[in-house]
């Protein structure tokens, strides 16, 4: 039988940091390459000495970090800032557990490099609290039991918040389309729709918030 070697040593003429940054337009692919087996070319291991300063405005507060250019916003939130409401589900932009708002728009934090998020307003599920009080979307999720294990829930809540900021009175169809990027394996979808419909109605009538 054929003998095969399994080794993915970095190529000698690997990426320079400048070259790597030049590819962040294809940020998704570059980040995925860090963790997946699909990589065709593997960037040279980034020299820890070559870390880059970045200032991120997260939940209204400015935080300064030194980052490896390959670090994602998700990594910064969970591993550097230590706020873990934003969940890691697939880290390849497919499940929505890591959804955050970037300038009011739902975005996957796993597909957003920390460097890309500089200059934007980043809101995580923790940022939807008013002090210790739940925000209206969060409250509706509790009341309508719009969760089971709860792992996808922060992403669902943030996706709903983003949807409602863009469209305060979505139809049920618009809710389903708008939130179809967030998987819930427990299948709490019907209750999630119920919760978002309830908040949407409330906002229309000037109720809950």
């Amino acid at each position, binding site marked *: *039988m*054929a*003998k*095969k*070697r*399994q*080794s*993915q*040593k*970095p190529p000698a003429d690997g990426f320079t940091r400048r070259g790597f940054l030049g590819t962040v337009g294809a940020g998704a692919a570059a980040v995925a390459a860090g*963790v997946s*087996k699909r990589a065709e070319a593997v960037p040279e*291991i980034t020299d820890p000495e070559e870390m880059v300063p970045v200032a991120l405005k997260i939940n209204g507060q400015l935080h300064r970090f030194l980052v490896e250019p*390959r670090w994602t916003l998700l990594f910064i939130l969970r*591993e550097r800032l230590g*706020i*873990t*409401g*934003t*969940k*890691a*589900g*697939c*880290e*390849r932009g*497919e*499940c929505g557990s890591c959804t955050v708002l970037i300038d009011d728009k739902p975005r996957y934090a796993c597909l957003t490099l920390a460097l890309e998020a500089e200059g934007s307003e980043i809101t995580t*599920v*923790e940022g939807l*609290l008013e002090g210790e009080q*739940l925000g209206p979307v*969060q409250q509706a*999720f*509790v*009341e*309508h*039991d719009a*969760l*089971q*294990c*709860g*792992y*996808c*829930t*922060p992403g669902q809540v943030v996706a709903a918040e983003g949807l409602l900021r863009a469209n305060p009175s979505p139809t049920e169809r618009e809710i*389903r*389309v708008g939130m*179809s990027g*967030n*998987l*819930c*394996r*427990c*299948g*709490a*979808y*019907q*209750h*999630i*729709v119920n919760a978002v419909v309830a908040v949407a109605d409330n906002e229309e009538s000037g109720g809950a918030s």
Partner: protein
Amino acid sequence: MTERHDYHVDGTPPETPENDAAAGAWAETTVVGTRQPKIDGYERVSGAAVYPHDVSLPDMLHGAILRCPHAHARMLSIDTSAAEGMPGVHAVITGKTPGADMPWYERGGQFYGKLFDDTCRHEGEEVAAVAADTFLQAVDAIRAIDVEYEELPFVVDDDKALEPGAPVVQDGGNTAGEPQVRARGDVEAGFADADVVVERTYRTECQIHAPMEPHGSVARWDGNKLTAWDSTQGVFSVQETLSKVFSLPMSNVRVIGHYMGGGFGAKLETGKYTVIAAIMARMTARPVKIFLPREDCMAVTGNRPGNTMKIKIGAKKDGTLTAIEYDSLGTCGAYRYGAGTGTLSAYLYQVANLHSVDTTVYTNAGKARPMRAPGVPQAAWSLEQAMDDLAKKLEMDPLELRLMNLATDMQTEQPMPFTSNQLRACLEEGAAAFGWAEAVKREPDEGHIKRGVGFAAGMWFYPGGPPSTVIVKLYSDGSANLNMGASDIGCGTKTWAAMIVAEELGVPLDRIQVEHADTATTQYATSSGGSKTVPSDSPAVLAAARSVKHQLVHFAAEQLEVPVEDLGYADFAVTSRLDPEKTLPVTEIGMLGRRGVIMGTGYRDPNPEGTFTVPVGAQFCEVEVNTRTGEIKILRFLGAHDSGRVLNRLTFDNQVFGGIAMGIGLGVTEERVLDRQTGKMVNANFHDYKVPTMLDVADTHECLPIDIPDNDFNSTGTKGLGEPATIPTAAAMGNAVANALGIRITDAPLTPRTIRRFLDAAGKEA
């Protein structure tokens, strides 16, 4: 390490201590049965809940596991020297590392695998692991490990595994254990007796559990004490395995799993990742966290096997079943597990003559694990579509056919009466609520959009039972603490448990704290699987609350100088039945104040002997099929379920809808694809493996509980729900699609391609 029954204890029957106070059935309830949001909803929606994947300890290292890229290979050499010198790397282990040379996979007391095996029997088998300062550094390092493999021939199709000359997956051949046979009566005579016979072969595809929280663990040593924060369905099961593999007393192993992001059966057994994290934590004297990348979760952490099921049913002209012959083939992957589906055909309907064979084969694929009602949704896919076929041939209403053949008892070798089986009510009330009678009369559609309705029934066979121990503590201010070991895997365990305490003691829900799923601080419970957490643990919660009440009444009797028999407990006070003036609010019971806490312990009473308990259900749906594209749109779903008493109606609905969503996955969207050229899984991600989204489930869902307590089974009258809720779903859709198209589509999932393939074969125009 161990091959264990995940749902029940074999051998010695569980010992059940006597409870302080008898826990009889409730007459009426004020909290139990209402709609209550989760008591830990705040934590879960605010981001405050710390899941194992969120655990971050000072000085913690991150681990990554190198996996074999081939379906079948022998490792010839492994060179870790480059990885060892890389930045941030603290440990590199392989099967040759002292302490990591550990047996794994046990059957009948014999180990037949290793933690790191030189022979890799499926893509993704563990080869080496690294612990580094950051996860990315660990990933960089495993990529720098140089492995030389000799590739071996492989087999990934279950129907090819038994062919002569097929590559051998495990020594001793590719049959995983003797085929399981269920037989009663005389099937040949039964078919000779039949006026009508239907026969077809059905196929389902392999489904992946895919819980949203990846599999993983954080391990920390303090001397010879090990603590693991594990994403598991059973902390005590993980504790037992860790204590075995590290030769530690159970008291030195603490496993914590307060929150966990879903399991569906994939997190019942201890993962290799937990042990690998612990080995590297001990080597480095630092905590180590390993959470698997999603691709690895998809490929190696378990699946529901695909099954090929040949079914033959005979019936008299009046619809009475005379015989069922059933032959099922499935693969457990490369390591031992049962891929059988035979239970439903054997027990759902009354039939005197049965012959059923379940064959499980080894293939070079990831190991199957119990997945939400293991075997039974596949079985329903074959049996319940065959029943519809039979009804059509008999020119009977399929509902009537089922109603006249309902099982009257559990048809085991020694038949046993059911403690309850409300399948008739599920079918009749479900049909009424769905509007079945009108829906089936609908004229066939002219155009290319065809509407159809269908339903299917289901039954589940693990009733639950002892052991379970629960402690309820009442504090001097009248608030309570509930202490139980069960994991809350998303089924609202903490909430229904608190509701029972609220019901029994009158403590408001917002004054009850629940502590659970920690081997060091909470009481023993079996793993949360088999839909048995409610029926196993709720009677223990009730007994613990009754014990507190019992003590309170006794203390009040002394204080009021009234005989215990004359006292009643209501409205959070103990009052004389003869003289209502003699009353004592609970918080004014002197002994409560003096002790500071009154503690009650509750145990799960044994199950009744000589009976069998089955949760049952029926689901109805309406679909639209586009005959041009083969696409399905699911318009509505209704689930009518008998799970005994409903504890929390809101959670009950959620479970039923969630079961339907997962059943839609099995029936319509999900399919593991293994490449025949390489044996590799080509869709090990959420983009190509289609877990249903909000757009894929039905437009509307309705839940109809048949809320009749099964008081002959346990003190709370409860049966399980989580698994029953996904059993009939795919079959109901299969029947609805057949109703819409007029042809039977035997292969799940009902993807556009499959539907078009069957339409083409039937010569139906687009």
